[in-house]
């Protein structure tokens, strides 16, 4: 990295502070990050001053609806911002910029958070920086793990993408052709009426540990892309048969009845195998040997374990993953990516802060990298 990141530094100040607001799905997160002058490196890394989050949790069997989620965010945003500033021990006037998620995500929750961002910007007279949610995940992952130029597997409730950097853009090499991995897991959790606390994927992971029998499911990899809706329909059908008691499914080899745990186990094994496979295909294609896993599903330990096994078989391969503080949606990643943007002079005028539900990862011009 040789991009000059200090053209826009305030005179006499040796560091930057940014506030990040995230609310693209059912989590509202606020964080404060600090960068010192100069290039970011292992000796001059970004400092997380605070990272506060609240999740809108729905009863088992229900997903989160945009309107209710937006109401949750509106109710919490002021408290969480106050909290984040308190933990970080900074006040509004110390900040350099306010960063917010501009997309992609659910419309109503995004809107409710951007209003808070605009208000703060005018209150404290600070520039606004709109951040692409996916870029936030990638940049935070790179910063925390120190991965230089990895193939990124971005897996969350609404996204499933295999991404690699080339010529100042994060380019999408593979992605889902229909639903996202987290969406697939969440919907299956609803079918099984698994609790949504702390989050459905976690509970599926715990149940899967007790699963013994592997139920054959479709395996739908299409090059570096994949499709998951057929798998969901198939396993939903099996679950219905199991609950109804009519013709309950049995294991082919032992004849033992299939349990909910077995279904969770089979779903995880099949979906994650597909994810690891497309990641490996992208690695072979772009000749890279680093993998970075980001996004909420990235906190799944079984997925991390499988990825580790894949990487071991590749020359000089290494895997980088973060824990739930940074994997699951948070404000700090928005602050970090936004601050990088700010340091290269990219800010948004007030008229240009409209959120968008669809905002492709490869639309962002990555001005802070030039390798």
């Amino acid at each position, binding site marked *: 990295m040789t991009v000059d990141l200090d053209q826009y530094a305030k005179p006499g100040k040796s560091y930057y502070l940014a506030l990040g607001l995230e609310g*693209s*799905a059912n989590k509202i997160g606020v964080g404060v990050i600090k960068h010192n002058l100069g290039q970011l490196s292992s000796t001059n890394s970004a400092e997380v001053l605070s990272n506060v989050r609240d999740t809108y949790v729905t009863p088992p069997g229900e997903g989160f609806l945009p309107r209710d989620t937006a109401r949750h965010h509106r109710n919490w945003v002021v408290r969480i911002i106050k909290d984040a500033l308190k933990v970080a021990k900074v006040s509004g006037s110390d900040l350099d910029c306010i960063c917010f998620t501009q*997309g*992609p*995500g*659910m419309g109503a929750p995004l809107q409710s958070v951007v209003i808070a961002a605009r208000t703060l910007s005018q209150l404290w007279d600070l520039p606004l920086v709109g951040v692409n949610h996916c870029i936030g995940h990638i940049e935070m992952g790179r910063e925390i793990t120190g991965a230089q130029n990895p193939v990124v597997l971005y897996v*969350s*409730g*609404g*996204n499933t993408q295999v991404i*690699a950097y*080339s*010529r100042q*853009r994060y*380019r*999408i*090499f593979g*992605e*889902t*052709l*229909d639903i*996202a991995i*987290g969406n697939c897991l969440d919907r299956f959790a609803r079918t099984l009426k698994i609790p949504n606390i702390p989050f459905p994927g976690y509970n599926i992971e715990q149940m899967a540990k007790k699963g013994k029998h*592997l139920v*054959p499911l479709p*395996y739908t*990899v*299409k*090059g*570096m*892309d994949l499709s998951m809706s057929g798998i969901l329909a198939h396993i939903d059908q099996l679950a219905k048969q199991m609950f109804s008691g009519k013709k309950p499914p049995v294991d082919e080899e032992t004849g033992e009845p299939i349990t909910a745990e077995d279904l969770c186990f089979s779903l995880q*094994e*099949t979906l*994650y*195998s597909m994810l690891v*496979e497309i990641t*490996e*295909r992208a*690695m*072979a*294609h*772009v000749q890279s040997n680093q993998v970075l896993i980001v*996004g*909420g599903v990235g906190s799944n330990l079984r997925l991390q*374990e*499988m*990825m580790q*096994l*894949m990487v*071991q*078989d*590749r*020359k000089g*391969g290494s895997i980088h993953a973060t824990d739930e503080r940074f994997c699951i*949606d948070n404000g700090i990643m928005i602050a970090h990516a936004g601050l990088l943007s700010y340091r290269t002079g990219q800010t948004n005028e007030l008229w240009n802060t409209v959120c968008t*539900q*669809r*905002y*492709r990862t*490869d639309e962002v011009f990555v001005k802070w990298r030039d390798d």
Partner: protein
Amino acid sequence: MTDHIVAQAQKILPNIPLSVVSQGAEALVFQTGTHPYCSEESLIHLSNASTFIIKYRPPKPYRHPKIDKQITKSRTIAEAKFMSKLSKLSIPSPDLISIDSINGVIWMGYKGKPLANGEISSLKNWLWWLEKQDDSASLCVSDVVEKVFLNIGALIAKLHLNEMIHGDLTSSNILLEENHDGVFEAVLIDFGLSSYSGLPEDKAVDLYVLERAVLSTHSVHSEIYNEWLLKGYNDMHLSKEFKSKQGSKKLVETIKRLEDVRLRGRKRSMLG
């Protein structure tokens, strides 16, 4: 760290000298001088009689053994069948020599020729090499490159018109071979994800996958590359050979579907 996989392969193929050519996503590709069942004298008429390719799909430790066994077996068989069908249709692809589906081994003829920098002559490596020689447009979008892309488009069209789907079209899975007149001819490889279908949907996804691979791997000139690919694809459908076989009707259906698939990729809801 790939050494133990090479050792595994050597165990399945005792006494066969193996040297690694490349490590793909699911397979290790070796080069060898040994033919599994023909004597050297009987091979004299072949152009590449001294080199053969062995593609080995090792067990994947991350996959559940049940899934792994099933996938290795079905993909190896599918690939071998696809190759034999291609050679019947005289679509350029490696010649199938032998197959061991349980162990995931396919023995095939050698195709292509190393580039000036010693790399395999895949479309990807060739384009990267051209970019390195001269970043300006002249070399990367020359007539030679155009011809190659038109040729590839036509090749894919031929595949699709025979209701065959490659399933993993990328610039790494297309080899270039120089023929006697010095013209580059495309050779398709890697058919592990192949299938048979006459549905416009499957053909459109096949094209879309390649289009996206070109876009992300060769982004500078991707627009013109994809244009040429589609032109080659079009021309083959409207050629004398296929016009009588509903070529133009199939073309319209597939292209219309391709537009739908593109839209799906871009407009799908992206929460999270």
